[in-house]
């Protein structure tokens, strides 16, 4: 209770601080490889994805002269007259360098038939070096009137980069009009909001079923004898060790129209006709719950193992019914496990694409299916990245909200 610090005490404090520093440095060095690993495998790729959703340099990389003019143009009125000769020169240069398709593809995202428009121009312009009467604009009009239409020019100007909101807007079913207002795309073209909703519905349903099955399973697993517990763990881990196609084929055998499950249900008189259980939402939920169950059971059982049985016994001895003891004493202690399991399953579920693709119908595909499609099949990486950003943002928001709720309840 004194403010006076003796020299000896000060030395002690310093020595302590020194030791602490050493320990901290050791700790840091130990985690450094992991840290570097995380930077390279996690932060860099995610950063790159975020960048690709807004960076738009495809056209700029192959048509530099036109892009310079397009960037300077405010989009009002006629396109600058200098655009046409520059565009002709750029198209010719890029055609001979075999890079014109890069610009063609980018324009195609925003304009129907944009690819054909550019590729046709590339073929024709290869033969024209001097325009008749020096009028390049006329050459383009004769090629295809679409070149001078506002929609084309606006799309071209917006594709000039270096950044764009085109992909992010598209991933939310939005677009910019010629005048720059952000509007929803026509109903017939809108798709991603619906897909996003579907993704969360499927993820939520799978999480719910995984919890309903996983909670009692984990409870039994922790209560069973060592040997039975080990067998139960193996059963839960089994889907991890099975090849995806084999697993899928097994579900088809079980769930198909005249499969075991349907035959059993009809034989028992529960159904009159076989129900459709696969290649629809039912199949997706069943197969995904099967695969993701370990992510629910393992954290739950880890938490349940740490719960001291005395607490429940104490509640019972104080007169609580079994249900009350469970509800008031046991269940609240498992909440951290529930939170971890729910979060793990849900976040894994909304990223799934191959299982829904194999056992789902065409209307069961989730956001990741589209990301994979754009990444791999059509290399529209801008849109793929934008859809990835949407998924990332939703996941982050949900997990923050969820963490708030979970911790709030625990300390309440």
């Amino acid at each position, binding site marked *: 209770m004194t403010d006076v610090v003796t020299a000896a005490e000060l030395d002690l404090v310093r020595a302590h601080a020194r030791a602490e520093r050493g320990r901290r440095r050791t700790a840091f060095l130990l985690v450094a490889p992991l840290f570097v690993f995380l930077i390279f495998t996690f932060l860099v790729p995610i950063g790159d994805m975020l960048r690709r959703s807004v960076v738009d340099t495809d056209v700029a990389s192959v048509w530099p002269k036109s892009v310079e003019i397009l960037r300077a143009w405010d989009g009002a009125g006629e396109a600058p007259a200098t655009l046409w000769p520059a565009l002709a020169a750029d198209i010719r240069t890029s055609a001979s360098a075999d890079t014109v398709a890069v610009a063609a593809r980018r324009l195609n995202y925003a304009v129907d038939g944009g690819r054909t428009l550019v590729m046709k121009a590339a073929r024709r312009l290869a033969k024209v070096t001097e325009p008749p009467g020096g009028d390049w604009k006329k050459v383009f009009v004769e090629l295809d009137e679409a070149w001078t239409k506002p929609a084309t020019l606006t799309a071209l100007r917006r594709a000039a980069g270096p950044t764009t909101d085109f992909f992010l807007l598209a991933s939310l079913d939005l677009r910019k009009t010629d005048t720059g207002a952000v509007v929803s795309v026509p109903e017939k073209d809108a798709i991603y909001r619906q897909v996003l909703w579907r993704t969360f519905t499927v993820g939520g349903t799978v999480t719910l079923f995984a919890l309903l099955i996983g909670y009692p399973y984990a409870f039994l697993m922790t209560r069973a004898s060592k040997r039975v517990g080990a067998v139960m763990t193996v059963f839960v881990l089994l889907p991890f060790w099975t090849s995806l196609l084999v697993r899928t084929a097994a579900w088809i055998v079980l769930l198909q129209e005249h499969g075991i499950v349907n035959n059993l249900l009809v034989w028992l008189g529960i159904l009159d006709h076989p129900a459709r259980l696969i290649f629809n939402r039912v199949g997706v939920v069943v197969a995904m719950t099967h695969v993701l169950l370990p992510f629910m059971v393992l954290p739950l059982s880890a938490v349940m193992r740490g719960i001291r049985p005395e607490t429940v016994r104490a509640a019972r001895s104080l007169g609580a019914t079994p249900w009350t003891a469970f509800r008031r004493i046991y269940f609240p202690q498992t909440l951290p496990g529930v939170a971890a399991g729910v979060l793990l399953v849900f976040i894994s579920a909304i990223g799934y694409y191959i299982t829904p693709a194999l056992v789902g119908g065409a209307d069961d595909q989730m956001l990741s299916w589209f990301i994979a499609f754009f990444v791999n099949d*059509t290399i529209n990486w801008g849109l793929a990245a934008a859809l990835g950003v949407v998924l990332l943002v939703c996941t982050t928001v949900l997990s923050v909200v969820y963490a708030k709720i979970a911790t709030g309840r625990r300390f309440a």
Partner: protein
Amino acid sequence: MQRNRLLLASAALAVVLGAGAAGAAGKLAVVSWGGAYQDGQKIIYFEPAKAAGIDMVDESWDGGVGVLRAKVQGGNAGWDVVQVESDELEIGCEEGLYEKLDFSKIGGADAYMPEAVHKCGVGAIVYDFVLGYDKDKIPADKAPKSWSDFFDTKTWPGKRALRMGAKTTLEIALMADGVPADKVYEVLRTEAGVDRAFKKLDTIKKDLVFWKSGAQPPQFLAAGEVVMTSVYNGRIDAANKKDKRNFGIVWNQALYTIDSWVILKGSPNMKAAYDFLAVAGKPENQAKLPNYIAYGVTTKASTALIDKARLPDLPTAPDNLAKAKMIDTEFWLEANDKLTERFNKWAAQN
């Protein structure tokens, strides 16, 4: 001690990064589709290539031009020769992911069928999307003959399967609706043509299931889950040969496509790559492929060398080829994004 550990860790990291950065010149890496197909390729191409002194290893992949783009743009492909599908060939070529091929080093362009010659790739196999059905379930006198029959749920009740996505599905719908095969893409290029295709699909929507992996359609047929399916012809043949199935193929109105070999840009093994492609382009080697899998091959001279009894099972048998329509890569390059979105939109409507 601590410092040593760190040193070790950073050394390990350096090794990992170093291995990534150095273009591993040396063994030629040839990448194909795996499975029974690659097993056959091993015997007829890879072993003879090794015997001819080409130091090579083979790997397999699942496709996706995005994978190649990431590899080549990442600065080190690790792969040299890759077998790609037609749209991967076209997109990758436009992106500059492949070397331009010098056909004079692999037997000359004239040695190959014209569809197999591309500035960035040389055709390896020809295969078909065909209508497949189970002969044990559909008697010969009721066998389907065209995609119109595929849409006839009165005569052939039950579910049918198509590939998930717009590609091939829309062509099939239009042919079923009476559009002649050589007019399909002309019609599909119009808004009304696309509407027409979806309208036709509407007529059997409740009976349609979709497959994603090429291994699925034979499984569906075997399980009795579907009565007819679109399927790669090689898969039907394999199911008949290996699993003793009795599946039938309708060659009429088949859609065919070609997979090609490409050399990835910046390959450090260019000479070995060409030497390998020359081995894979020898008619006498190619003519052995049908012994393992029912794909057509691409050199003109090979057809004459193929067993006459086997030829009718192949997409390149003159009779079969005459009834087939080549999938228009150019069209799909332009329309795939939009039509795939439209397809999914359609699927979600009831």
